[in-house]
């Protein structure tokens, strides 16, 4: 008679318990509210608004009731474009961060779990990617291969993985020595099962912080590239709007002010939230930031 061992099912914490664990204070509560608001705004509002490229009769109209953020050089409503811009900027940020995380976690997990020569080789490669100026390389790659939004997401994602990989590796190096991992090895669980169901879930807290930071740096990187005119013209992002605003700075300040505020508010909220998570997850550093 064969016996199979199965671990007791973990008790899922209730939603309220999870929220209580976050130890929210004023600034982190505001940050979370801003992020949720911005996500709703970016992904729901464009559905209700017209196309971002609809041209009106009024060029360079200052902010008014009809156009809360004014109109641009072609008479397009800046508010509509702002909402679509939010969608592009956030999508690029989130998708690029996901790309970076998938690559980073895979590489970090392999390096940390196998150790030895594989670890050394992978970490050398990640060091190389850390010293290479990301912005310059992204600019070069997109200038050569063209600015299509999927391509921009991939490029930014491919350049962001080393940070995630290093954190994953560190966690794996320490977690693989824990008793429950040894227990899993003793009962003959497969390597894949150990990596995915024993180690990875326990390595998640610092990785979530790293992913938050990836989103904010991806949004900034995309904005910088779009500002240089390397953005995808068919998907207006906040950076692209700032690129268009540059030549009309004196005539239409609203074209520059609102998209920029969108970036600052979103990125600042992500950074505050990330810092807060770091504090909560790492009590030793409490108050260090």
């Amino acid at each position: 008679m064969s016996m199979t061992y199965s671990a007791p099912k973990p008790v899922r914490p209730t939603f309220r318990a999870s929220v209580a664990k976050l130890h929210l204070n004023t600034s982190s509560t505001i940050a979370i509210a801003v992020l949720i608001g911005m996500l709703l705004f970016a992904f729901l509002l464009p559905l209700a608004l017209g196309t971002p490229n609809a041209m009106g009769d009024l060029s360079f109209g200052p902010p008014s009731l009809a156009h809360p953020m004014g109109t641009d050089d072609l008479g397009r409503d800046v508010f509509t474009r702002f909402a679509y811009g939010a969608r592009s900027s956030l999508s690029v940020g989130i998708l690029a961060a996901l790309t970076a995380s998938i690559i980073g976690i895979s590489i970090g997990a392999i390096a940390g779990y196998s150790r030895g020569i594989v670890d050394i080789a992978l970490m050398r490669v990640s060091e190389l990617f850390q010293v290479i100026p990301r912005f310059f390389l992204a600019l070069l790659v997109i200038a050569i291969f063209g600015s299509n939004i999927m391509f921009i997401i991939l490029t930014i994602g491919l350049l962001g993985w080393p940070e995630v990989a290093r954190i994953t590796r560190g966690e794996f190096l320490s977690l693989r020595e824990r008793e429950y991992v040894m227990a899993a090895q003793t009962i003959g669980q497969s390597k894949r099962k150990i990596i995915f169901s024993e180690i990875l879930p326990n390595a998640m807290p610092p990785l979530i912080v790293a992913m938050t930071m990836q989103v904010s740096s991806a949004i900034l990187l995309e904005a910088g590239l779009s500002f240089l005119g390397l953005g995808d013209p068919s998907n207006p992002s906040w950076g692209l709007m700032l690129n268009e605003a540059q030549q009309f700075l004196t005539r239409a300040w609203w074209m520059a002010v609102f998209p920029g505020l969108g970036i600052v508010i979103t990125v600042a909220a992500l950074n505050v939230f990330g810092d807060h998570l770091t504090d909560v997850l790492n009590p030793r550093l409490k108050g260090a930031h």
Partner: protein
Amino acid sequence: MPTDVTATTPDKWTDKPTRSRSEAFASMRYIALKLISAIPMILGVITVNFILIHLAPGDPVSILVGETEPTPEQLAALYAKMGLDQPLWKQYIDYLFGILQGDLGYSYVLQRDVVDLIVDRIPATLTLMLTSLIVFTIVGVALAVYVARKPKSAGDQAGSFLAVLGYSIPAFWLAQIILLIFALELRWFPSNGMVSSRHMYEGWDYFVDLLHHLVLPAFVLGMRYLAINFRYARAAMRDALSQDYITAARAKGLSERRVLFHAYRNGILPVITVFGLNLTDILAGSVLTEIVFGWPGIGRLMYDAMYARDYPLLMGIFVFVSIGIILTNLVIDIVYSLFDPRVRQQ
């Protein structure tokens, strides 16, 4: 019988133990290891660039030439130099040795060697970066030391808020807003360039004119330095102030100023390393700032190269800047190890 005096007697004057031979050896070994570890990095950067040239759509020569129309002699020379009929590894070796000898290619758009074009722009970029770096590092660290005494005070909160903003504001947007307010509306500062083009100032007047142009871009760039330095110096000061030797210093009855100085010396070292780690982000910010303010540095050169589809120049700048970052980090590591012997033991 001659004896080695320095090796046996402690140095009475400085009250420090003399460095033993093994310590000097550890230090040399550390520097050598660091130097060796920079080599694969530099090779890596050059390899990335080589791969890009060959992955680009179209044949490599047409990528490098872009939309210009080089003379038949130039084309023949380029084909001969790239050696496209040679096996790929041979092309790679030739390319590698070319770069290591300082050959970053030729700009067909500007009809000049890429190295010369870059070298021309270095002074402008360094003037902006270094001024901003020095001024705002001092401001950031001073602010951090000042608020470290009173955590959670209004000053501490304000400083932290400023640091979050410094991290979150895209340099080019801050540049646009500052330009709009202080140059275009108030007209306190010039909006473009490094010196006035209408007047040819000399001597002291030239310096004042340069400074006048420098204020706005240096401020924009400096917000980032301020944020980075404040954040890390504050964390380091907090950490240092909680150590036993601070408690001991307080117990001895030292004045709070002396105590702070004790913490300061140890708290400030990490700032150097942090600068190295943030160098790539800082350079990106400096490129974008240069572009908004028309500052004639490497960033502006890169922007123009991008619009002219001048790929040899773009790639040359990429290789140049990457190697610059690797070497700067190398120097930082070595300097740091001289200050903090614990690093060498790793």
